[in-house]
């Protein structure tokens, strides 16, 4: 059983978020709080607005109604440097800058936001690579030379560059083989425990949701249901029930029992 230092601090608080595309409301009053130190999963069917919610939470998209607070201040008003040191994002395709090597990708935010000398920047970059489970010589490679799993790890290392308090992950294990995906899951757990980073994970991956997440927000019909997995498993809502008790959920359940001792 994992034990985490967790307090009741709310890091990010979203209230009554409404997002519309034309007439269709993707989110119709979504409220959720992200607690310091937790791993929060965001799940939902294709087209349920998971990625849009993620964009809203990190301040890339201004919701049509509602507010997002980062440490109590509206995220739209946060200074860019402040926001960058609080929030890290792992984009689905990695979003590594293709013209820079992996090490340069990691050093870019450090170089722009601090006045550390180059050798110190390089030491930090090497440490982030190691934290993300990449060999030090991979820093020389360019994104086009990396495999899918390595792209995710490199993007992870870059997201960690400024030691953010909250790390948002958009589908961190999609397009990966199961072994690589387990490696990414293990890394998330390690960083959550070791660095105390709060994670918000948008994912379809039931194994990630079942083994890693403290709480899960399920998006159905424009609303979010947020609870611990134990309680969600009891839910009578048809989509949530089907999602958590479908044929693919069984394997994830086994993984959960293994990860948690006996569940």
């Amino acid at each position, binding site marked *: 059983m994992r034990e985490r*230092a967790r307090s009741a601090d709310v890091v990010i608080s979203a209230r009554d978020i409404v997002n519309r595309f034309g007439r269709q409301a993707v989110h119709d009053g979504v409220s959720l709080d992200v607690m310091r130190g937790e791993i929060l999963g965001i799940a939902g069917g294709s087209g349920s607005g998971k990625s849009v919610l993620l964009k809203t939470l990190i301040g890339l998209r201004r919701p049509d109604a509602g507010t997002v607070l980062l440490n109590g201040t509206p995220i739209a008003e946060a*200074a860019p*440097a*402040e926001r960058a*040191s609080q929030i890290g994002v792992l984009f689905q395709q990695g979003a590594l800058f*293709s*013209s820079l090597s992996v*090490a340069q990708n990691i050093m870019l935010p*450090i170089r*722009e*936001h*601090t*006045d*550390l*000398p180059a050798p*110190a920047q*390089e*030491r*930090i*970059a*090497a*440490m*982030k*690579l*190691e*934290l993300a489970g990449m*060999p*030090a*010589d991979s*820093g*020389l490679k360019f994104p*086009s030379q990396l495999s899918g799993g390595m792209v995710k790890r490199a993007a992870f290392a870059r997201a*960690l560059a*400024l*030691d953010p308090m909250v790390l948002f992950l958009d589908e961190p294990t999609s397009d990966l083989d199961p072994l690589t995906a387990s490696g990414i899951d293990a890394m998330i757990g*390690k960083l959550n*425990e*070791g*660095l*105390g980073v709060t994670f918000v994970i948008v994912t379809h991956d039931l194994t990630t949701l079942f083994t890693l997440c403290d709480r899960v927000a399920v998006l159905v019909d424009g609303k979010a249901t947020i609870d611990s997995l134990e309680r969600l498993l009891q839910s009578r809502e048809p989509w949530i029930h089907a999602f958590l008790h479908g044929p693919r959920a069984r394997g994830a359940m086994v993984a959960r029992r293994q990860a948690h001792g006996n569940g």
Partner: protein
Amino acid sequence: MDAMETESTRTLRAPMGLHPPGKSAAPALVVDSRNGTPALRGTLDIHTVTQAERSLEQAWGKGKSRTLDLGGLDRLDTPGALLLCALRKEGVELTGVRSEHQSLLDLICGLDLAPLAKPKSVSRARELVTQLGKAADEAWRDTIDVIAFVARTANAVVYMLVHPTAWRLPSISRQIAETGIEALPIVGLLAVMISVVIAYQGVAQLRPWGGENLTINLVAVSVLREMGVLITAILIAGRSGSAFTAEIGVMKTREEVDALEVMGLDRMQLLVVPRIVGLVITLPLLTFYADMMGLAGGALISHVLLGVQPAQYLVHVRQAVDLSDFFVGLFKAPVFAFVIGVVGCMHGLRVGGSAESVGRETTRSVVKAIFLVIVLDALFSILFEKLGV
């Protein structure tokens, strides 16, 4: 602990610069070297780690103490932990570590850190020679590729001549609309502008010799023989050649070209030939249109600069130009169209998997198409001179 605010206490501030406001105001780090026991207090993070390192060096310069008290440390991040781990490796004893920092320290100190790999440095001269060799090799391959691609296009066209059902008429007509009709306004405007430019130069140069009426000859002949077709071809290379590369390139990155192949369809017949044929039909028509607009621009500017009436202008033009001038210009158009189409499609199919290669190939295709158009035009000038046309 309260007695720490003594003279030997150094107070450090975080760099103001980009550091988030609010945090930098407080003393970030305090090194107290009283009794020879340094202690870190406040915040040890990416913004303060350099100063901390410097002050610690100074503190240890005097005393022999190899311990560091961390009981007063409020905030610690990974660069800070990295510094502490490096100190620990040098034999410094870290005391009073708070429980919330322990796991971070354990994690960072447990890493097997290797220095960041450096790119191998090559001597300038050697690099120059390598680059030269690479460029030569690439130019050679490029030439072979163009020749091979022309052959493959010809092959596809011959096949389609034998099998008339293979012609994709809807897609050819779409190409004509996109490369031709939509380009009419810009081509016409440019042709008028070019004749204005030539006319102004002609009047300025010929007036001292009293031959300003020869400006009309200058405008008419240069527009019909050279400028009409050249300007149109360059514009179309930028407008449609680039579009060919980008369209086919995006299909390549999204594996659509592979999908065609798997369905047993020929990419040359489906993607390349309709574009090239469309362009070969449109460019002569656009050139004719540019010629007419250029002559119209000449009439306008002759009226303004020389006071020549349109009717007189027409008579003058009729005397100045030969039908061969007109056909020399028009003859070049399909050749240029073929070159632009071949280069555009070839670079489109060369696109690799990534999105950035679409941009790279598009640039190359436009540069190469314009280069070849101008080189061919020069060759044509020499050829027609020798033939006496």
